[in-house]
Every structure is written in structure tokens, then in C-alpha cells.
């Protein structure tokens, strides 16, 4: 017969100080783990949610990013007229040739300068990205020195309010609007007219990339191959979603450091939990012997103490998660290893993150509780009753 769990709960309550301190120790470790997992979840979302499955991105063959390389502008008309390209609201092929560059912007809080992506696009560029919504001001006018910035650029960088002017290229650009990119990688970009930008940076006659909208997912796949296989073009087509999914490896440094830190802290916390559980067992030597005399079996005692340790770590995990809650949604940035520029993302405590954190905490409890529980179950009844 199993020992009722209320016995363990009462015991944990009895030594409040000890329980709370151990749980806090576990909580700190869980907090660290949640922080790292939430960062990775946010970063993942930034890349995975970017891109429309119908969009085909075209780059020069061999080039891996929009920033590196580029192709001749004369190829664009050929691309536009390929079979499978959808029509835009004016009945023209829905396509946008774009020019992408990284520029340096000063951070608003004065902590330095960061590379940010500036993207010049054609008028279809906006229609190709239906997930992006204007939240303030208006879109840029083609042919004007106007830009729109993403919400997080607006928040994090100086000179990024509507009406401000930004200095890059050959002179000032007026910020006319702010857009919300829904947590995607576009959250880290500044958009303007492609021709204006190219002339500002002396890159007329070339584009970094082109976006084509396919009529349906099957066509998108066919269109991608059509671009890649065309020997005249020497270009490479890929789904926009594939392109961004590849960039998630930008999270690798965070992942590496984060896991190292979390594991070291977890080992430390397991030892602390073990200490507390050993003390709990030592205090209750006579009690455990009495339970044995009454007829509770060794496995029942073992389970009971492991359960108590798990309860302790669960409490720790819950405290840890609650401690992290205020930081949920906080935005931060890291460098994108493909574009060498800043990618902005927010901490996201998804259900997956919370569950992982709880499991992480319970593992510490399990490790910490096993040896003491074993010790409790193996005690000699007579000696313990006498002690």
C-alpha cells in the first residue's frame, strides 16, 4: 500500500524554511533555463514565421544570403514572365526586385551602434507580404526619399519616429510610417523604394534578390525549380520559408552558452536538493521505522520520498516560472549569422517552454531525491526505532 501524498505535503510544510530555501535554489536554476528557452523560442518564431509559402525568393547561384551577391537588373523581366507567377491587384505579374543593404544605426539607449537591414522594394513588395501591417503614418511613396521602419526598430533605435530623418547613403531619408511585422525577421528592417536606394548606394543596374508570388503551393515548388534550372539566368530559386528556416542557426551561440549554464546550475541544484532530502530522512528516522512496523513496504517508502523530492522541485519550478513571467514579451536582439545584422525578437514563454522548464525542475528533484529515498528505505528498523 502506498503512503498518502498528504504525508509528504505536511512534512514539507513542517520545515518551511528549509523547503523554501531549497525550492528557491531550484527556482533560480529553472529561471535561467526558462530565460534561455524563451529566447530561443522567440528567435525561432522570428525566422519560422517569416516568409509566405507562396513566395519564391531568387538569388544569384552560389549566394547564400540576400546581402551577399546580386544579379543584373536585365534578368528581372525574364523572371517576371515565368509561368506560374500570380497576378497582382493591377493585373501585372506579382513580383518585386529588391535591394538589400546593412547600415549602422545608433541604439536609442546609447549603448552603441548596430547593423540593421535596409530593404528597397518595388510596389508589389508590400502586396507580397500580407502579414505586415502599417501601425502608424503611411507607406513610402515610390520615387521619394522616404522609408518605413518596423515597430521594434522604432523602439530600439534613435531617429526612428514618424517625421524623423535618418542619415544613410547620400543623405537624409524621412521616416513616414511604422509597420508591425508580427514577430517575423522583417521586424528588424527599414523599407523604402528600390530605385531610390540603389541610386543612393551606386548600385543601379543590379538587384540583390527578387520575390515572385506563385499562384498555389504546388506551382511555387515548380517555379522554384524553373528558376534554378534555367541555364540563361544562372540564378537560384528557393521558397521564402526555406530561406528563413535556414537562418535559425543564428541562435547557436545562445543555445550553446545557455545550455552550458543551465546544466552546470542544474547539477549544483541537484546536490542542494539531495542535501535537503538527506536531512529530511535523518530527522525522520524513527518515523520511517514506525511506518515500516505498521506495514508499509520498502518500495512504498522509496516512492514516498522520491515523491516528496519531486514535490519540492515542482514548487521550485513553479516559483522559477513565476519569477520569469514579468520578462515575457521583452524584446532583445542578436546578430543574424547570415546577414551580420541585428535580428530583433522577443522572449516568448510558450506552453512548450513552460512544460520543458517543469520537466527540467523535476529531473533535478528526481536526481536529488533518489539516493536519500533509497537510504530511507534501507534503514534498519530496530536501530532506527532506538535512535
Amino acid at each position, binding site marked *: 500500500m502506498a503512503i498518502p501524498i498528504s504525508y509528504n505535503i505536511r512534512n514539507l510544510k513542517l520545515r518551511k524554511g528549509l523547503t523554501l530555501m531549497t525550492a528557491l535554489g531550484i527556482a533560480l536554476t529553472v529561471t535561467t533555463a526558462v530565460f534561455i528557452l524563451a529566447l530561443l523560442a522567440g528567435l525561432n518564431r522570428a525566422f519560422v514565421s517569416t516568409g509566405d509559402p507562396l513566395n519564391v525568393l531568387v538569388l544569384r547561384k552560389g549566394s547564400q544570403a540576400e546581402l551577399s551577391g546580386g544579379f543584373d537588373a536585365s534578368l528581372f523581366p525574364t523572371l517576371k514572365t515565368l509561368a506560374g507567377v500570380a497576378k497582382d491587384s493591377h493585373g501585372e505579374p506579382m513580383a518585386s526586385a529588391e535591394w538589400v543593404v546593412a547600415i549602422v544605426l545608433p541604439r536609442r539607449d546609447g549603448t552603441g551602434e548596430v547593423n540593421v537591414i535596409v530593404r528597397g522594394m518595388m510596389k508589389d513588395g508590400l502586396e507580397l507580404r500580407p502579414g505586415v501591417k502599417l501601425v502608424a503614418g503611411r507607406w513610402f511613396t515610390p520615387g521619394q526619399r522616404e522609408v518605413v521602419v518596423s515597430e521594434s526598430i522604432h523602439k530600439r533605435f534613435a531617429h526612428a519616429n514618424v517625421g524623423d530623418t535618418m542619415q544613410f547613403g547620400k543623405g537624409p531619408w524621412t521616416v513616414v510610417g511604422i509597420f508591425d511585422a508580427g514577430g517575423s525577421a522583417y521586424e528588424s528592417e527599414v523599407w523604402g523604394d528600390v530605385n531610390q536606394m540603389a541610386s543612393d548606394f551606386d548600385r543601379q543596374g543590379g538587384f540583390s534578390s527578387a520575390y515572385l508570388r506563385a499562384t498555389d503551393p504546388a506551382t511555387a515548388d515548380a517555379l522554384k525549380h524553373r528558376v534554378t534550372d534555367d541555364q540563361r539566368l544562372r540564378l537560384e530559386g528557393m521558397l521564402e520559408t526555406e530561406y528563413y528556416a535556414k537562418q535559425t542557426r543564428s541562435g547557436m551561440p545562445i543555445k550553446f552558452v545557455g545550455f552550458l549554464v543551465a546544466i552546470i546550475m542544474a547539477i549544483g541544484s541537484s546536490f542542494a536538493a539531495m*542535501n535537503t532530502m538527506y536531512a529530511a530522512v535523518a530527522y525522520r528516522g524513527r518515523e520511517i521505522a514506525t511506518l515500516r512496523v505498521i506495514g508499509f513496504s520498502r518500495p512504498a517508502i522509496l516512492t514516498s520520498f522520491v515523491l516528496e523530492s519531486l514535490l519540492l522541485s515542482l514548487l521550485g519550478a513553479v516559483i522559477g516560472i513565476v519569477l520569469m513571467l514579468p520578462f515575457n514579451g521583452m524584446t532583445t536582439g542578436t546578430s543574424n549569422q547570415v546577414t551580420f545584422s541585428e535580428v530583433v525578437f522577443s522572449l516568448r514563454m510558450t506552453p512548450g517552454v513552460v512544460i520543458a522548464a517543469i520537466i527540467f525542475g523535476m529531473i533535478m528533484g528526481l536526481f536529488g531525491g533518489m539516493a536519500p529515498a533509497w537510504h530511507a528505505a534501507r534503514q534498519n528498523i530496530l536501530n532506527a526505532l532506538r535512535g
Partner: protein
Amino acid sequence: MTLSGFAIKNALRNRRRSLLTVASVSFSLLLLTLMITIWHAFYIDQGAPETVRRLITRHRVSLTFFLPSYYAEKIRAIPGVTAVVPMTWFGGRYKDDRPENFFAQFATDPDEYLKVASDKEVPADQAEAWRRDQAGAMVDIELAKKYGWKIGDRVTLQGTIFPINPELTIRAIYVMDPPNRSFYFHDKYLEEAAPFMKGRAGFFFTHVASAGDVARVSKAVDDLFHNSPQPTKTESEKAFQLGFIAMMGNVKAFILSICGAVVFAILLVSANTMAMSIRERTREVAMLKTLGFTRRSVFSLFVGEAVVLSVLAGLLGILAATGLVGLLAHSPGGIGVVTHMTVTLSTMLLALIIAAAVGFVSASLPAYHASRLNIVEGLRYIG
């Protein structure tokens, strides 16, 4: 028996508990030492004396823009400059896309480069062979070992930024401490294969006469090109690397918050242990006081015990951290700043002081209570 001897004896009384406490605290201190080491490498260490005297000049707007090659001659004319070399990041791939096959490749002018990079050791005949062969390359010895390259081997890179695939012959292998695992070839080769690179370079590496010249020369260079269509940004090699670290996010806040969490965790663990062991010894404390031990000596007895345990844990943690840093620095994937990291003496001392301080603070409250214990009540205490 002296008081300190008594404290040590007491620390060893409940071996299992002491062991677990030391283990737990030492893991936390391992982490703390690692974090201090990273902080030191990033923000305090100025790098080798050679790197202090080197400046990097790049396009003000972004690293992805090229500068005109003639800037080199203008920079050279600034007093205090001893050598200038144009460099271009090639960013090609070798074999495949996998990150472990990525290494830095630069196109440069061998004559000037060997003057600037005086921290690289190259046999004179190999350096000469590289100078003479326009399709020759110079590689780091660690990189050569990784791919089994020998002098005379042919290596083909695939361009990603440039639409060319250079076919190069290894002419020189250099040794550098720590190794930077990089690959250098002639900028003339790049210019001929990619004609739009004629008269252009990615950035300039400048060597100045003394460390005192760094700030002045940086400013002089940027002022020189301030109003030109290609303005520049010049900074020391270390500051340039820090720029990349800053881009990884708010690293300072990240390190500090981890340190804070770790110190707090040690405090909890240590306080927990001391509270447990003092409670167990309530009767003993009363006995000590009956024998004439003062409040003060009872207090220092327990605090001393906690400090002994945490310093022991500190020593273990520092030892483990030193091992781990050494392992990271010599791992094949180690690049850039990681290879420069060492646990310095001052880092060790700082970690030990933090350990001792935490031990002291954590034991203070329970030890204070023990010292104020009422003798009669203490003797009656049955645990």
C-alpha cells in the same frame, strides 16, 4: 585545540552533508569563474601587445561596402602609421555548407600583410614562395592540420559573395598563438577573377608605431575621409571584435544576471546547510557556553565552518573552470575570442573572495542566533 581547528573538525563531522554542500557550491563557483573569465576576455583584456597597435578601418555605413584602394596610401601618410594593408573578406565555402567547414578567408597584399601581422611566424622561404605565386595561399597550421593540407596542395574555394571559385596552391603555413584558423590569398587574384574589385578593398589593417598612437591615428583617418562619398570608421582590433560581441545582444546584462543568480544560489545552499547543522547542535552550543565559550567565539566558530566549506568549494570550482576553459580554447570549433581566454590569477582571487564572503554572510544569521542561545533552553532542546 584552536578555534580554527575546531571549525575544521566540525565541518568534517557530517561528511555527507559537507560533501554535498561543497559539490553544490563548487558547481556554482565554476560557473561564476567562467563568467568572470568571459567578462575579463571581452571587456578588460586588451589582447596581445601586437593587436593593441593594430587598427581596422572600414566603411562607415557597413562592413558590406567596399572602400577605394587608394585610401591605403592616404592612411600611410599619417604620422605614426608604420604599415597599411588592404583586406577583403572573401566568405567562400570549402567542401560544403556545414558550419564546421567554415573558416575565415581574406584576400590581401602579401608584402604588406606580413609586415602588419608580425605575430604570425612564417618560415622565410615559404613567405617568399607565397609572395611570388599570385595563385598562392597562406594558411594557419591548425587549419592545415584539420584538412591534412601540405605545402603545394591545391585548394578550391567557392565564392558566395563573389561569383568566382578561386583555385589556390598552399605556399606558406604560419604558426600563431592562439591560432586563428584563417586563410589568406592575393588580392591581385581576386581582382583579376572579379574585375569589379579592381581598386577596391573591404577594409584596411593599419599598424601604428606605439599604443599611444591608436586614438590619434583612428581619429585622423576618419577625419581624412569624413566628407568623401565613402566615409570610414576606424577602431582598434579589439574594439572591432567587441562590435561583433555587442551584436550578439546585451552580453553584459546577460553575464551579470547569471552571476547574480549564481551568487544568490550559493547563498541559499550555504545558508541552508549552516541552518541545518546549527540546529542539530543546539545542545552542543549550550554546552560550549556552559564551559565558558563567549558569544563571540560561538559566532566565529560557525561562521568559520561555513567559510572553510565555501572556500574549499571555491578552490574546486576554480580548478574545474580552469580545466573547462582550457578545453574550450583547444576545441576544434573554438574561434575568435574563446581561444584567447584564460583564467587569470585575479579572476581566481575574485572568485575565492566571493566564495568566502558568501560563506560568511550565509552563516551570519544562524550563527548569531546560536550565539544568543539561552543555555537552559538549549540544554533542554531535544531536536
